[in-house]
């Protein structure tokens, strides 16, 4: 699989330089608040029931062999076409 990822700091780089951070999910806890005690069912759905949808997916990648920063990506899971996502 060839996939080039546009890193906002390093430019387009091979996906093998990155660590996959999974599809972008709602967070445990709101920004600025941190995780709060959640309903266990909601938590379960959030952690386990991924969309894994064919099509454009928002996901996070960590540039391990590069700037060591996270970035967000929009990737079409069917074609591997990628575009930068919004900054976190």
């Amino acid at each position, binding site marked *: 699989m*060839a*996939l080039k990822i546009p890193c906002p700091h390093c430019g387009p780089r*091979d996906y093998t330089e990155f660590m996959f951070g999974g599809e972008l999910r709602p967070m*445990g806890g709101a920004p600025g608040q*941190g*995780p709060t005690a959640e309903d266990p069912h909601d938590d379960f759905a959030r952690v386990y029931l991924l969309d894994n949808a064919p099509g454009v997916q928002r996901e996070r990648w*960590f540039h*391990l062999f590069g700037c060591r*920063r996270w970035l967000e990506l929009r990737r079409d899971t069917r074609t591997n076409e990628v575009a930068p996502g919004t900054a976190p």
Partner: protein
Amino acid sequence: MTSIDFEGTPVESNEGDTIASALFRAGVRTFTRSLKYHRRRGLYCLSGDCPNCLMTVDDVPGVRACTTPARSGQRVRRESGSPSTERDLLGLADKAHRLMPVGFYYKSFTKPRWLWPLVEKVIRRHTGVGTLPVDQLPQRKGARHARPDVLVIGGGVGGLAAARAAAGAGATVAVVDEGRFAAAIPAGPLRRRIEDLAAELRGLPTVELLEQHVAVGIYEGPTVPCVGPHELVEVEPGRVIVATGAVEAHGVFAGNDLPGVWLGRGAARMAGVHGVAPGRWAVAVIDTTEGLEHLAILRSAGMRVAEVVAPDAIAGRVPAGIPVTRNARLLAAHGRGRVESVLLGTARGERTVACDSVVISLGYAPRDALVRMAEGLPVSAAGDVVIPGCTVEEAEASGTRAGSDAGRADHAREPAQAPLGAEGYVCLCEDVGVEELRAAWAEGWTSAEILKRYTTTTMGPCQGAMCGGHLAAFVEDHGGAPQAQGRTTARPPARTVRLEDLAGGVNEVIEKRTALHDAHVAAGATLDRSGSWIRPSTYGDVAAEIRAVREGVGVMDVGTLGKFLVAGPDAPQLMDRLFTCRVRDLKPGRARYLLALDEAGYVMDDGLICALDAGRYYVTSTTGGADAMEAWLLNWADRWHLRALVLNQTSMLGAINVAGPRARELLQRLCDDDVGPAALGYARHGDITVAGVDCRAIRSGFVGEVSFELHHRRSSGEALWDALRGAGADMGLRPHGLDALDVLRLEKGHSYLGQDTLPDDHPAKLGLMWAVHMDKPAFVGKTALLRMSALPLERKQVGLDFAAEPQRGAPLYAGDAIVGRVTSCARSEALGRWIGLAWLRRVDGAFPARLRAGGIGATVVDTPFYDPDGARQRA
């Protein structure tokens, strides 16, 4: 003049020879025995397409002798036949086709049931497909990536023209070809054109020429692994142009596999490139203009053409003096083990013509497997592969179109199909004849894909290059349903590939060394890989190293630990929300054991957190978890929008663990700071200066004795190490490595994450709930732990005492049932017994306490095994 070693006999080879041409010149005619019926097979295509010349070369089986250059000293032997390929008793199988009917492995030898495994062994040996060398280490090849705009596969006229056009349009280009350009083409206009085009490209800085590289297949991306003689090149081009040409159509008639039957190009190559006449006198069956050109080449090598069989359009152009039979059909080739005559069907009846070779030029089968496997990818084609049988000029024009503009690439033109006779081998690789296809059809296997699977047609080394078109034609001729027709699916790899080649580059890994590496080497340490780090496992005497820590003092290089500085106004909040322990109440100067859980509540990593001054923390993680820890810290800081900075200090700082009952005494010799129990008690840390080196000393307890982890600037590592070793010499100080650590930590019941734990271990399974402060409002993984706490604990980690030496990894039995597995074990001299850690499953509502590990009795006991109340490490 060089020579190769052919089955113990030296065989001379000339410059430019392949293994096949050298052997043929020396008189070898039988190159292989066929898979099922052990029929003699000789050279046929001479282009790397058919399976007739697969040999074992320097212990590597399945090498195509016809495309492999001959090299001095090469050891070549044939693979099939017993006792030998030349005199093969298994050739009797050819007299007994009834024993192996089509699909025999689905229906023969099936009753009684015990018979098949025995028969299968015999059959496997019988096939003679070579033997894998199992006593050799694979060759280590390097790998590199290439990312041209355009990759051209195939260095003929079409491919090179495409490369020239693409380069002319400003693209970077790579051209891959299995051999050297033009090397396999007889002298003539085609060869000259290829050489001219290659010469034009050689000067261009934007064109990379990968000769003698095999494009194995086209994968998603597109990615095209190209196996070269010394390296694997993973080409990731913007687009691909396939110009792999066409192979001459395989002729299907009775006796079509006898040695002496040649494809026209193969015969011309043997005569024109290697200067060896393919036979003494030939019958040539010619349906193509190119076949006419071959005649001159064959005659110039001294071959007599006894007769030409050709349609009217061609017949008129056959050189004078050669007898021509118009509009006849080649019905059969006859002979015992080689061609002795052919049977022609003419308007005036059948006629036998004596000859020792049959040269057939019946049409073309495009080498289109790469195109067909690349659906949905930016792959186009040029030359012979889309215009089978095109002229040199047409190929060049086609290549130029494909190279300059992807959208204008040619669409595949259907090749004229070589006729399918009533008899003969359709699939040479798997020994499948027309009769067998008919039998399978009669059994009800009436679609191309199913026929393929049932008869294994197209499933051999040629991957359908010779027979794919014939199989499709057979289904069409027999009135297969529309959806049952057409070519079968093409998948990579398209060419034979060795796992060793695809594994190119896997040995190229990052190797990290600590600042003390040279000191370890000088001390004679045994070094081993630990993740990407090189670390000492022992300095020679593991037992003495353990004793030093338990009775005096030992030092260990722990510079590989993950080390992070976390700072910023929101750092306390970040730490508190991430880790399972309370952080906000951690006073400067105190350290705490930390667990990092993922959102599913499973243990990811552990380490220590030290509170520095206001809002700054120093966090350590395991060696193997350092990268993941950094990513994890940064991810949450990002996503929560917290003002906290994470600085990975793993490779900036070194760390030496000084441990043992006399560790404090040793430090006092080298340090003016107060290292006493009040200032630096257990789970405290402080900045001290040891032998002039500024250190952060952390009182940790992994090995179960008083221990000081001295974190320091990497550049001061060796000075500190030497000072410690010098000052401790009279205390019996020893450095220790991972082997001693493994026992020391096991005596304390500490897990190695990943070795003693499973990916779905939450803290309760590991007995680590003491490190989880569930009264905190929230931390990552808390909700999952709450959710799981409602479920019964089905598996947990336990400590074991063994009656004798156990095996790590041994299954644990309670009665006859396997209920767990030993994950660590060792002989503890301090305790005088065998101890270990294991995971254990609940049986009938309770965890069994009396077990057997293999044949060894095991009892569940509490951990820590050594110093259970921790008095020694707290001192």
